[in-house]
């Protein structure tokens, strides 16, 4: 265990009902800011700040061929690149486990909640579809990239407008007024377990000593749509139930910001 001292300090704080920065267990850092339309060249973009964590997400729309098994459905592609500028522990090169997991958690939240109706992304059955490409780019990693990224991805999708398409070529210089329609708003909340306590929105120190984490994505009516478990320790069913409950509850709170 690399961070034995830090871990025992954090646990003693948790037992005293507080955290490193004095927050409650289920309190997000302040302020949470969402800013849309920050990149002109992207079809949709957003910047999200949770405390000192800052994420930029850009959405591009491309015309491509559908997959053979779903000829009348568009698709989404989520990519994340963890820039060394955002955290000294990140390194350049092909995406590592962390970056892939981040992209997949965001992807799954949007895909499984059916936030985008893939059928509506179809232009010509079996020939042409819209591909929604979502790129996640952390500017500063001060903890909790999962929640910030999925919030930013959703905000960027909300902001997305179709470019002009004449059946042959896409003119990215001209945007139409037609917006990408979001059917649902899946919000991801990561609940982490340290010792026997559950907390949300970990900062960078708390992330170092996580026992287990569960990212819970839920939609407006509180329906669970995606989950991702991480960390080295197992979770019992009762614990998972409790984490889901916290996740859905905090999700409702976060949704008000959008």
């Amino acid at each position: 265990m690399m961070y034995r001292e830090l871990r025992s300090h954090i646990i003693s704080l948790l037992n005293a009902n507080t955290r490193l920065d004095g927050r409650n267990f289920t309190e997000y850092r302040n302020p949470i800011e969402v800013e849309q339309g920050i990149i002109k060249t992207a079809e949709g973009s957003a910047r999200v700040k949770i405390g000192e964590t800052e994420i930029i997400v850009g959405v591009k729309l491309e015309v491509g061929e559908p997959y053979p098994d779903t000829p009348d459905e568009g698709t989404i592609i989520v990519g994340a690149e963890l820039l060394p500028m955002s955290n000294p522990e990140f390194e350049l090169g092909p995406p590592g486990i962390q970056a892939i997991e981040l992209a997949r958690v965001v992807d799954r939240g949007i895909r499984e909640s059916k936030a985008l109706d893939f059928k509506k992304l179809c232009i010509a059955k079996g020939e042409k579809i819209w591909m929604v490409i979502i790129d996640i780019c952390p500017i500063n990693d001060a903890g909790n990239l999962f929640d910030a990224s999925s919030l930013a991805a959703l905000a960027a999708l909300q902001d997305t407008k179709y470019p002009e398409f004449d059946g042959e070529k896409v003119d990215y210089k001209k945007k139409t007024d037609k917006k990408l329609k979001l059917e649902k708003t899946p919000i991801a909340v990561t609940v982490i377990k340290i010792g026997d306590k559950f907390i949300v929105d970990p900062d960078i120190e708390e992330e170092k000593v996580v026992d287990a984490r569960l990212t819970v994505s839920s939609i407006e009516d509180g329906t669970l749509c995606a989950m991702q478990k991480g960390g080295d320790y197992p979770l019992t069913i009762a614990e998972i139930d409790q984490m889901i409950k916290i996740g859905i509850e905090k999700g409702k709170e976060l949704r008000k910001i959008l």
Partner: protein
Amino acid sequence: MSKIIVSDKSIAVPGETLATGMDILPGAGTYREGEKIVANRLGLAMVDGRTIKLLPLAGRYIPKTGDTIICKVIDVSFSGWRLDTNSAYSAMMSMKDATSEFIQRGANLTQYYDLGDYVVCKIVNVTSQKLIDVSMKGPGLRKLKGGRTIEVDPNKVPRIIGKQGSMVTMIKDATRCSITVGQNGLVWILGDPMSELLAIEAIKKIEKESHLSGLTDKIKEFLEKSIKH
């Protein structure tokens, strides 16, 4: 003829000629180029008799012999420990300098200092190649148990410590926290949760307002007000 061009406490930029003449000496942050003394970095030029030095306004820590610093253990090797000094260079602590205890041949070195541990140590030597040797032998040099470490601007450390440690003593007394400030910009704090937060807030306030005069009174007022609440 020697001539000092800059006035005391004025801002100098890298490459700026601060003075000319061989009887003026270049201090920290400056260098001599022929007759001229030229600034190395951005900072306040301080004229002290015949020497000119530059107080940097910002920047990373540069290791200096005799500094007491807080380091993190990043590697355990055959003959000692490698430490992260919060600067561009890592330091080496040999077994001989690590503890006054006898270390058996082939002993497990992690029982003394393990990866990720923080220690207070003193720089005994910095070579021109910036190889750093540190020692744990001396008063107040120890392994830090519990508590938390925060990072501040190394250039603001003198303000956080204050004259003869007045500032840091004031925070210690007001918050009843143990605080150790390393010259390299790492500060270790241990106390009960709420006072730790208050101590951090006070330190951040000093960092932010370090250029203002009457800082000690301001911090005193801030601490007194916060403790009442």
